[in-house]
C-alpha cells in the first residue's frame, strides 16, 4: 500500500492524518455536546438502549488490528457517508417537527453535519493518496424515514451515539495510518484497540 511511498507522499499522508485526527477529536467533542443537548431537548432517557442504525457500519469491529490502511479508510468513508445522509435527514426532520422553536439544536446539528462532510472529504483525499481513489458515492439511497416521531427521536439518538464512537475509532485509525512504512497496517498495542 504505502510501502513504495515517496518521501513527499509520506509527508503529505502524515500531515493529512494529523489534521484528520484533530478533526475527529473536535468532531467527537462536538458530537458529545450535541448528544447531551439532543437527549435533553427530545425528552429522552440518556441510558435508553437503541437498535443499531441501519446503513452505518458498526464502529466496533473484530480483528481491527488486522485491517489494512485502505480497509480502514474505506470503512471510515462508508460510515461517514452514511452519517452525512442520516444527519441531513435528522436536520430535515428537526426543521419539520420544531420549525423555528429550537434553532440552537438545529445549528449544532448543521455544524456536525458540516464536520462529517469535511471528514469524509478528508478520507477521500487520503484514499487518493493511497493510489486507490475513493469509491463512488452512489450508495443505496437515503435510509428509510422512520414512521413515527418517536422512532425519529430514537434513531437520532442512535446516529449521534454511533457517530461519537466512530469519531474515536477514526482518530485511532488515522493514528495507525500515520505510522511510517508498512507498519501502517500492523497490529496496534492492545491499549489502542477500539
Amino acid at each position, binding site marked *: 500500500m504505502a510501502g513504495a511511498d515517496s518521501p513527499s507522499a509520506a509527508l503529505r499522508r502524515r500531515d493529512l492524518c494529523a489534521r484528520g485526527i484533530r478533526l475527529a477529536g473536535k468532531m467527537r467533542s462536538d458530537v458529545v455536546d450535541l448528544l447531551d443537548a439532543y437527549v435533553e431537548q427530545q*425528552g429522552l432517557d440518556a441510558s*435508553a*438502549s437503541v437498535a443499531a442504525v441501519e446503513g452505518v457500519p458498526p464502529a466496533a469491529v473484530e480483528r481491527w488490528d488486522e485491517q489494512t490502511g485502505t480497509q480502514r479508510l474505506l470503512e471510515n468513508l462508508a460510515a461517514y457517508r452514511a452519517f452525512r445522509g442520516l444527519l441531513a435527514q435528522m436536520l430535515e426532520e428537526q426543521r419539520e417537527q*420544531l*420549525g*423555528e422553536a429550537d434553532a440552537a439544536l438545529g445549528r449544532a446539528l448543521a455544524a456536525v453535519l458540516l464536520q462529517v462532510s469535511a471528514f469524509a472529504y478528508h478520507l477521500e483525499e487520503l484514499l487518493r493518496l493511497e493510489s486507490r481513489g475513493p469509491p463512488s458515492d452512489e450508495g443505496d439511497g437515503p435510509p428509510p424515514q422512520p414512521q*413515527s*416521531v*418517536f422512532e425519529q427521536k430514537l434513531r437520532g439518538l442512535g446516529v449521534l451515539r454511533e457517530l461519537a464512537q466512530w469519531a474515536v475509532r477514526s482518530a485511532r485509525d488515522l493514528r495507525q495510518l500515520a505510522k511510517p512504512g508498512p507498519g501502517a497496517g500492523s497490529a496496534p498495542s492492545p491499549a489502542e484497540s477500539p
Partner: protein
Amino acid sequence: MWKNSSLRCLLALAILCLRSSVHSQEIGSLGHPQNLKCVTHNLHKMICTWDVSPRRKHGQTDFCYAANDLPTPVCFKTKEKRVEIPVPHSSSTVTITTNSISGTALATKEFKIHKKDILFIPVAPRVLSLTPDFSTSTLNLKWSDNGSVFPDGLDAVWQIQILRKETVEKVTQVTYHSKLTHEDIILSWNWTSDIPLECASHYVKIRCYINVTQFVGLKEWSDWSPVEVILGKDTDPSESGVFPLDTVVAVGSDVTFCCIHEEGQNITNMSYGSKPYPMIQLSSRSHAIRVLNASASDSSGTNVVCRLNNGMMEGTVLFVGYAPDIPQNLSCETPNFQIIKCSWKPGRPSGLYGKRRTMYSLFERMSGKNVSCEVNEMNRQHVCGFPVLPDQKTYDFILGVSNPIGQAESSLLVDITQRVHPKTPEKLTVSENNSTSIHLHWFINGSFAEIRLLCQIEITSGHSEQKLHNVSMPGGKSSAYTAHLNALHPYTKYQFRVRCSAADHFWRWSDWSRVEEYTTSEAPPARGPDIWRERSSSGESLKIFWKPLPLSEANGRITSHEVSCYLLETPLEHKVVTEPTNSTEIKLGKNDCVISVVAKNQAGSSPPSRITSMELPSDNIITGQAMAMGNGINVSWDSYPNMTCGYVVKWCRSSGSEPCSVDWQKFPSNTTNAVIKSALFKPGVRYNFSVYGCKSTGYQLLKNITGYMKELPPKSAPNFTVEETSSDSILVRWEDIPIEECRGFLKGYLLSFAKGEKDALKPRLSESGNPELKVNNITNLTQKSMKILDLQGKTSYQLELQAYTAGGLSPPNSLYVVTKEDSVGLIIAILIPVAVVVLLGVVASIFCYRKREWIKETFYPEIPNPENSKALQFQRNICEGNKTLKTLEMNPCTPNSVEVVETQSAAPKIEDTEMMSPAADTTVPEDGSDSEMENHVVVSYCPPIIEEEISNPPTDEPGGSSQVVYIDIQSMYQPQIKSEEEPEIDVVTTAGYKPQMQLSVNAMNTESRSPVEEELDKTAGYRPQANTNAWNMDTPDSPGSVESNNENASFGSPCSINSRQFLLPPRDDEDSPKPINIGWSFTHFFQNKPND
C-alpha cells in the same frame, strides 16, 4: 258418546268464534288456510303469510283479494304460502282456496284484513361504510335512510350500538334522529372513542324505527344491520407499538395510550413523560394507560414509552398545546399600492411547532382570493402580504387561524387609500439655487398616483433650532419627488431628512430617510463689525478694536478687515488687517478722523462700521459701584436725554496688573442699566467699567463704575496693633486691606474680644462660644482705631479683628493683651479681711473675759475630768506613752498578752469580725448575762495596731461604763471566728499573704461575687491592702460618712504601707452617738492634714 259429540260440537263452536274474532272468515269446514299475517316494510306493499292446517301436501293455492278501491277482486295462483299485495286503504278481503295436487279445491277461506292489523317493520338499515380515523380515534358510519320508499317528512329514529374488544362489550348506544325526504339520503355519524382505535377491535351495528303517524297499524324497530368491525392492531400478529401515533391534543385533555406488543412479550412499565402510569389490560397483547388533564408539552412533544421485558421499548409522542387565539389588533396598510401588509398579534402561543404550528391565511371576501401566510412563530408580531387588486379600494379581510387543535378568525374591512404607510424615502439629494435656496430630491418606491403625498422635511443647522417644513405634492408611480427650500442661511451646514404620508387621509408617516448634509455657499457679511477705539495715553495714536461677526451675520469665513480713516471724506489712512487680528493702531497725532471698518469674506464686503476718534470732554466724572449678580455685573447709569445714539459700556477683560484687553457693549438710548456678562469674569476680582454716551458728534465719558461678578470674603484680615493699654481699656489700631485682597466691597470690621490666655489650641473667639465674648461692628470704613472700655485690670484678653464684604467675613487676626493692674482694688481686698479678723479677735477676747469663770469651770476645773481632756485620749497608746499621735514606726514591738476581765454585766461591744461572725453572735447572750469564760479573751497584742473603741453605753444600759477592747488585728483572721458556713474564709487563712485590714464580713455576705471568684481572689499569691469597695469615699467628718450604711468602715480604711496605722479613721458603729465620732474625726483630721 253423546257427551263426546256434544263436547266436540262445543269445541267446534268455540273455534268458529275464535276464527271470527281474528277477522277472518273461514269458508268450508276443513282446517285449511289459517293464521294469515300481513307485514309491510314500505307502506305500499305488504307481505301476507298464512299456514295450512293440517299440514298436508296440496297443490297451488288460489289467492284473491278485493278492496273498496278495486273494481274487481284480483286473483292469482301461488305455490307458496306468501304473497305480496298492496296495502289497502282501509281493509281488504282475501280469499284463499287450497287445491289438491290434482287441482280440486280442498278448502276455501276468506279473511278480512283491516289496516290496523298490518304490522309495519322497516327494512334493516344497510351500513354503507365504517371508516376509522386513527389519528383522532374517530369512527365514521355511513348508511342510507332508504327514504325513497316512504312518504316525505317521516321521522326516522336510528339506534347505533358500538361494541369493543374480542369480548364484544357494549361501549355505547346512541340514538340518531332524521327526517325522511322521499329520497335515499346517505346519513353519516361520527363517534370518537376514548381509547385509540388501534388498541382494540370496534364493532358497529344499526337499526331504525320510522314513525309513520298516519299508519294505524302496529310499528316496530327494524332488525339490526349486520355488524361492521374495525379491527384493532392487537389482532394483527405483526403489529406492535404505542398508540395513538403522534397525536395533538388540547391542554387539559384526557388521553389513553395503549401499547401493543408481540405475543410472548411482557410490558415492564409504561410512562408518560418521566412519570410511570398504572396499566389497564385491553387484551392479551394490548395494555393501556390513561393520562388525565394533560399539561402543555415541550416543543418536541411528550414521549410515551412502553418498556418491554426484552429491554426494547416502543413509544409515541403526544403534542399538547392550545387552540389558536383570536388574532388581535389586525391592521392592514399598503406601503406602495402593490401589496397590502396585514399585521396582528397572535395572542397566546399555541405551544405547537413545525408542521403542527398555527397556520394563517388571509381571505378577501369581495374578490374571494385567499393567500396563506408564512409567519415566524417566534415573532410577537405577525405580518402577511396580500396583493393589491386592480380597481379595488375596499378590502374585506378574514384572517383565518388554525392548528390541529382548533381554529379562529378575525376580520377587517379596510379602504387602502386611507391606510397608506409609504416606504422610506431613498436617494435624498440636494441641489443649490443660491446661498439661501436649495432643491431637495428624493425617491419613493411605490405607486401613489391615486393619492397626494404629504412630505415633511426636517432641517437642522448648527446655529438654529430644528425646523419642520411640510410640503404636499401629487403622488407618482415609483418616481422622484422634489421640494424647494428657501430662506436658508448662507455658509451654513444643514442636515436634511424626509418622511412622507398620505396627504388626504393621514395614516402613518414613513420612516425618516437617511440624513443628507449640505453647506450653503457664502454671501457678503450682513453688517459691519462692532467697533471701538481708544486713544493711547500719549494721545498720538488711536487703537481701533472690532469684534468678530457672529457666524449668522458673517455669512462666510471672514478673511480680513479693512480699516480706513477719513477726515471730511478724505482718506487719511487705509489698512487691511487679516484674520484673526481684531485691532489695529493708527498714528493720528493730535488729529481726529472718522474710522471706518469693513469685514470681508469670499463673497464680498460688509457695510462699513464707523466711529469718530474724537472723545467729547466731560466734567465731574463720578465713580459708582456695580452690583454683583453672581453670573455677571449689573452696571447702571442715569438717563441722558441728549445721548441720541445710545450708550457704550467699556471695560477691561483682564484684571489686576495684566494689560487691559478692551471689551465693550453697546446699548440703545432708553437703557439705563445692563448686566455685563463675560466668561472671562472671575469671582472676587474688581473690574472697572466706563459708561460712554453716544452723540452725533462722538462719544462722551459719563461715569466710571467698579464692580465684582461675585463678591467673596476678604482674603486676609486687616493688620492691627494695640496702641495703648490701661487697667480697664485697650486702644487698637488697624490698617487698610489691599484692594486685591478685599475681593468685594468692604462693608466694615468686626472687633471681638473676650478674656482668654494665649493658647495655641484655643479656637477662634467667634467659634469658641465664649459667653463673655463681645463684638463691636465698625461700619465706618474711615475709622482706623477703637478703644475697648470697661475691662478688668491685670486680665488677659483675646482680641480678634475681621473685615467683611457682602461675600462674608475674612479670616480673623488675633492678639492677646493683658490689662494693667488695678492697685486701689488690691489694697481694698487686703484691708477688709484684716479688719474683720481683728474685729472678731476683739469680740472673742471680750467674750472670754466676761465668761472666764464658766470657761475655767468647764475646761480647767480644779479636779480635771479625764473624759473631757483630749490630751488623755492619747494615753491609750501604750507603747508610745504620752507621745502625740503620729505615724507609727515599725520598731520591733514585743506583743504583750493582756488579759481583760469583763466584769460588767452589760454586753461588751464586740468589734467587727467577731461581731459580724455568726459564731460570735451565739456567744453573746441576749439577756446580757455573759459567762466569764466567754468574755475572758486572751489576745495577741501589738500596740501600733490596737483598735480601741470607747463606746458610749446604750441608753437602755445606763449602768454600763466605757470599755477598752484590744484586738490583735491578726486575730480577726483566726479560725475560731469563722463560721462553718463560710469555708472560703479558710482559704484566706491559708494564703501566704494576710491583708492589714479586715474585710467586712457583711460586705462579703452581701456581695454578689461568686464563690469561685472569691476562691480565685483568695488563692492568689498577692492581695491588695485595701478593699476599694469597702472604702468610704466621703470625708471623715462629713455627715455622709456617719450616716452612710458602710458597715466595714473601721477596717476598710486604707492603711499606711509602712506603718500599719490606719490612714483613715475607723468608723463607729451606726448605733454610736454622733458627737463621739465627731470628736475623733477632728483629732484625726489634724493628723492627716499634712498628708493632704
